[in-house]
């Protein structure tokens, strides 16, 4: 038996993580923005687990990732591989490889289909083998299970309260992020928004840490859907933003961020700190939310079941379940958003995104964000939610390059759509940002022209608008909801609102 087992190459496999061991271990995870990561840590703590978000990846992690895994990786693979490797290397230097194996467990997504995103773990495993950390435990999250269990009764499986907590943490993290990016460009006291965000995240983390336990399955689900617990916590967070004074007459282009999931979600060196850079360049950032990605996944599952009737079992049941899930997600997101006075952006309807993208990209093409990138760009342009779309694509990303290519025809049909596809290699910052800046310059001109048009429509001069705004206490409050009056820019909408007009 030994001879047969070693005759051919097989990668070493880590031992299974038992439920008892999970209570002693520390879970590592990453790849989201810091607000959601903080809240997910609190969710683990709430259930008696220890969890730690890896530090945001850096350029040094990129280099390590390239060095330790196979050549030709897309940059998210290099960043995340190097990020994990560097963290563990430092820990191993401090406490030894065996202690690292015993203490930590890495939780990652391991199965999503054709794109190599579903094969990241191969890179992690290779990098860890190269570091002498083979058999380090890594849990691959599938949509419905952790595939380390092999059906073993004693294996750790995340229960529904953990999954629901993580989803609610992402939704709340998204909403605080949305609040932040709608506020900071207009704050009159520099730093006030950042303070409000930090306080809000602390407050929400406490709420998640002390989340009441309401059953393991249906009870937990019903409680999450019905409870005012999270809306109450978000209302408290809103009060932190009440103190932030804003000047909404600053004319700024709104830049919608889209792209590959990791690059559009993280905030740091993996995407050249593009969120902060755009703000520094005078833009209002419309961030990409994790909630929209979840909504897309449900839409994709639903349409797969619809189109594979006859090839899969229980298609009708799957369609119905996906429909219910999608409604629950949207209702929950809107309810939570309501606690922040609907200031963070809402979720575009997936049906509309699909319909808008249909002439250019088939809705079933999978991997990455599929048709959603095209749909979002047209949606933001058509409904005047942004002056410009900045799409963050990893160098050599397989699905993203195809949708970027298909955008050529979109731009032919919509020549006014400002679109900046940025290829992110991780170490070519000047090139990427200068490319973005070219389109941003045009977006600034659009925002200025739109503001002029708004003044004209409102029949006001700039001075009159400033005077009216100075007298309007609501308009100076960050938590007051400015209605969308048909302009993409905040300043133009503010002028139109004061005059009771629409563009």
């Amino acid at each position, binding site marked *: *038996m030994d001879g*047969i*087992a070693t*005759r*051919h*190459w*097989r*990668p070493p496999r880590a031992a299974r993580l038992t439920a008892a061991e999970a209570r002693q271990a520390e879970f590592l995870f990453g790849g989201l923005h810091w607000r959601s990561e903080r809240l997910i840590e609190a969710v683990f703590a709430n259930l008696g687990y220890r969890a730690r978000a890896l530090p945001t990846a850096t350029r040094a992690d990129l280099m390590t990732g390239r060095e330790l895994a*196979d*050549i*030709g*990786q*897309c940059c998210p*693979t290099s960043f995340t591989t190097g990020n994990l490797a560097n963290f563990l290397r430092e820990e191993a230097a401090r406490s030894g490889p065996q202690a690292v194996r015993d203490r930590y467990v890495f939780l990652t997504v*391991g*199965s999503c*289909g*054709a*794109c*190599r995103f*579903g*094969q990241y*773990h*191969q*890179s992690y495993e*290779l990098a860890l083998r190269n570091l002498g950390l083979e058999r380090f435990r890594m849990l691959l999250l599938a949509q419905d299970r952790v*595939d380390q269990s092999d059906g073993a009764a004693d294996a750790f499986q995340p229960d529904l309260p953990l999954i629901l907590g993580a989803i609610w943490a992402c939704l709340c993290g998204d909403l605080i992020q949305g609040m932040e990016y709608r506020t900071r460009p207009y704050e009159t006291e520099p730093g006030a928004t950042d303070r409000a965000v930090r306080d809000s995240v602390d407050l929400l983390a406490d709420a998640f840490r002390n989340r009441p336990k309401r059953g393991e399955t249906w009870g937990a689900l019903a409680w999450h859907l019905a409870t005012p617990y999270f809306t109450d916590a978000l209302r408290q967070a809103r009060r932190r933003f009440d103190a932030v004074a804003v000047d909404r007459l600053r004319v700024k282009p709104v830049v919608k961020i889209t792209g590959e999931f990791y690059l559009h979600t993280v905030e740091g060196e993996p995407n050249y700190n593009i969120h902060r850079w755009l703000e520094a360049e005078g833009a209002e950032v419309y961030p990409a939310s994790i909630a929209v990605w979840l909504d897309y996944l449900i839409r994709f599952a639903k349409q797969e079941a619809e*189109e*594979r009737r*006859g*090839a899969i079992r229980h298609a009708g049941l799957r369609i119905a379940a996906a429909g219910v899930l999608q409604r629950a997600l949207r209702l929950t997101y809107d309810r939570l958003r309501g606690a922040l006075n609907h200031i963070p952006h809402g979720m575009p309807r997936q049906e509309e995104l699909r319909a808008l993208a249909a002439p*250019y*990209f*088939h809705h*079933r*093409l*999978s*991997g*990455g964000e599929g048709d959603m990138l095209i749909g979002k760009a047209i949606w933001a342009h058509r409904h005047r939610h942004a002056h410009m779309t900045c799409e963050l694509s990893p160098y*050599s*990303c*397989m*699905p993203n*390059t*195809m*949708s*970027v*290519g*298909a*955008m*050529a*025809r*979109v*731009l*032919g049909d919509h020549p006014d759509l400002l679109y900046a596809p940025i290829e992110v290699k991780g170490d070519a910052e000047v090139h990427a940002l200068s490319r973005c800046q070219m389109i941003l310059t045009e977006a600034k001109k659009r925002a200025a022209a739109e503001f002029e048009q708004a003044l004209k429509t409102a029949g006001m001069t700039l001075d009159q608008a400033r005077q009216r705004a100075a007298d309007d206490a609501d308009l100076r409050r960050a938590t007051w909801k400015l209605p969308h009056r048909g302009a993409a820019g905040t300043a133009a909408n503010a002028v139109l609102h004061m005059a009771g007009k629409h563009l």
Partner: protein
Amino acid sequence: MPRVLNVWSTHRFWLGFFGALGLPANRLVFSSDTSEEQFREFGRGRGTVDCCWPVKCASAHYGELMFGQRRKLDVLFSPLIYNMPSMLAGHVVDNLACPRVMAGPEMVRAGFTREKDLFAEAGLRYVAPLVTLAEPQLVAGQLFKAFDGILPGLTPAETEAAVAEGFAALARFDADMRGRSRHVLERCAAEGRPCILVLARPYHMDPGIGHEIENDLQNAGYPVLWSQYLPQDPALMDWLFGEEVRAGLMASPFDIADVWPSSYSANTNEIIWGAKFAARMPWIAGVIRMTSYECGMDQPTFTPVQAIVEHSGTLYFAFQELDSTKPAGSVRIRVETILHYLGRSSAGIIARKRALLPPDCPLAPG
């Protein structure tokens, strides 16, 4: 039809399908093999994004069919092949096509429609349905929807029969090719000769993409097999993998989960299985790996494939980052190196691998 991407492994399905619908083979026009000349003449300026050559060159195939034909064509048919019929179906998680390969036609189409509709100008109907060839029961519906109104009088029943004929034609072709591969191995076993296995994607058979590297080796007297057409008959599978299956190391001879648990991609899965086959088959003394520049599907497989092959003592040579231009000089030097090592080591490799397998070899009975 553009002769690109997964058309290289499914063309017999399309010939069978259209033939059964009464469209004779001479009315089905494939573009020519890929070449730099073809790209210069028909593809230049039509690309909308930089990507791997197998996808990028599709613009030239479209252009050739639109503007390079003596006779006028009526339909440009370029299916979005979502998933693939695979010999590993049922043993792996999924059989998806690469995301670029499945979406490539959408990207290429954009290059011909961004200013104006050049398909309409060329008098062509552009038909590009999404087709799930790994789910045969859905294919008739997908193709009927695509051709309803284009092929006069087409009915769902006719489409269904034509799809069945397409799959039958593909199965016959695959069986024939596997039979030929087996025959090559039988000859090698009988004569104690080494052969070479090519691990690559189906479109590396295109002389403009794989650059015919394997031909130089074949010219030197080494028979060449492709991983897509390896024999699979039960006795041979049991001889190669049976002991490991019975020891619980693999669920079946076609199981690759022991080395590649994320088995989503059909072509990747077949490359991994081909590597396992090569590691066990005594007369495969050397493996040639071909990958195209920027291939994200191949990238995570570099180490596992090399490790699987080399752990068995089989020679492994990789031609990575293949692009539009044939690197003739470096290929010649590499081929000389490969021939040198094959000449020096093949006998020992065959003997060592043969000694690990049961004595009764189905390839050389008696």
